[in-house]
């Protein structure tokens, strides 16, 4: 048995966060259209709105892509990580409005409300604005209007936008935990890694769109700066992570399948040290005068168990609170999740762990810390 699914896991913090997000987006769109209108009073309002929604989605994509590496560089960004999915869905909706527009009074069910017309909340989408004329279906016009796939400069930037939006759509509809569990974490993660393909396509969409419609080069420069920023923080975070991930197995050769991973005194009570053993991270916990080691990967969504604490005798995942007993790696009944465990041996204050994982749920005795062991070399 596991936790039953809910629709959206809103709590007070997430509600505040979502309100902040939506208010900032509304402000951005208002500011964008207003300032662009000031600079070019003869520009068509509908064209401006299309760009306002498109650029809001593109900016939000930069924020979303920055969250992962920023969290790896500084844990204070973590709250943003827990709310990233709401941002992703919001970004997709902005992109969708950019393409098909929005009219409050035409939304099914809402259109039945007689006073709905009093709220003239509507905006034109690029599909109607650029492709809905003549006798061709707008979708056909979108794909058949420009087929210069062989040319770089004349490449149909609309198709790049469609690729980007299709990926954002796939990500948005699979953002619920149900999909993570049912597609399995590697496939789900692979699918969500496509966000980088979407980013590349959208960079092309914005830059080529700007070149082909003779916009000011400032837009291209800004997209370039964004690209430099995204690449730089990813590289820095990856380098930092690689440093911390050197497998201990290489540092101290395994003797009878045990490797030394450090000393008891370096682990605070009820906390863990994370080390890479057997090709994956292992969390070595110190609690109740004992040391236990379990695989670092939470069965729920691969959360880092070693960044959690021992609460009420259970290792508690820092992401969503799934719990595991340190000596079996199993969740306390009635839950059925379990992770592999590792045998632990103490010599003086040195900790040795087995390089061979035990099957999830195996009873694995913790290594007791005898008086005087701690701090003794």
């Amino acid at each position: 048995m596991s936790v039953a699914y809910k629709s959206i896991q809103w709590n007070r913090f997430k509600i505040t966060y979502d309100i902040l997000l939506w208010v900032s987006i509304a402000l951005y769109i208002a500011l964008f259209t207003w300032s662009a209108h000031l600079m070019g009073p003869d520009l068509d309002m509908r064209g401006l709105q299309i760009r306002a929604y498109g650029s809001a989605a593109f900016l939000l994509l930069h924020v979303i892509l920055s969250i992962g590496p920023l969290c790896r560089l500084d844990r204070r960004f973590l709250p943003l990580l827990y709310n990233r999915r709401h941002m992703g869905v919001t970004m997709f909706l902005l992109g969708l409005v950019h393409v098909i527009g929005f009219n409050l009074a035409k939304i099914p069910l809402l259109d039945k409300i007689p006073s709905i017309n009093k709220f003239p909340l509507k905006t034109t989408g690029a599909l109607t604005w650029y492709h809905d004329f003549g006798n061709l279906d707008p979708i056909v016009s979108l794909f058949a209007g420009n087929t210069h796939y062989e040319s770089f400069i004349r490449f149909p930037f609309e198709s790049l936008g469609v690729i980007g939006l299709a990926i954002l759509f796939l990500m948005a509809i699979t953002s619920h935990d149900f999909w993570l569990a049912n597609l399995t974490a590697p496939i789900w993660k692979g699918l969500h890694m496509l966000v980088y393909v979407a980013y590349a396509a959208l960079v092309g969409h914005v830059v080529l769109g700007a070149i082909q419609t003779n916009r000011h080069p400032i837009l291209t420069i800004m997209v370039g700066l964004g690209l430099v920023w995204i690449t730089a923080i990813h590289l820095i975070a990856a380098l930092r992570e690689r440093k911390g991930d050197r497998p201990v197995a290489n540092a101290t050769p395994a003797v009878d399948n045990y490797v030394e991973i450090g000393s008891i005194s370096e682990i605070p009570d009820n906390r863990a040290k994370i080390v890479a053993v057997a090709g994956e991270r292992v969390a070595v916990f110190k609690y109740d005068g004992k040391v236990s080691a379990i695989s670092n990967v939470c069965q729920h969504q691969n959360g880092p168990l070693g960044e959690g604490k021992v609460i009420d005798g259970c290792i508690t995942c820092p992401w969503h609170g799934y719990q595991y007993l340190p000596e079996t790696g199993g969740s306390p009944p009635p839950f059925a999740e379990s992770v592999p465990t590792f045998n632990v041996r103490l010599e003086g204050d040195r900790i040795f762990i087995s390089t061979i994982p035990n099957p999830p749920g195996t009873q694995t005795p913790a290594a007791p810390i005898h008086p005087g062991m701690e701090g003794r070399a």
Partner: protein
Amino acid sequence: MNSFAIACIPHLMRVISIYLTIGAIFSIPFVTFLIRFVDPSARGLAIGFRLLIIPGVCIFWPLFVWRLIRRKQTPTERNIHRLRAQQNAA
């Protein structure tokens, strides 16, 4: 305008819409009662959750049809520790 593209795109759109329509039809019995055979975590009424997954079911419906036929449930991820533990146990 490319006449080949103009001729092909409507056909492609038709194929996509047929696929999605089958998915939409399948999603109704799936989210109402079939879902508990593939994922025991889908318990209780949870109407919001059931509505929320419909768009995804319209796309990934063949996966669930397959799992229902094979009587399979949500799989447990196989990471390297789990694989090694399994090998060693064997």
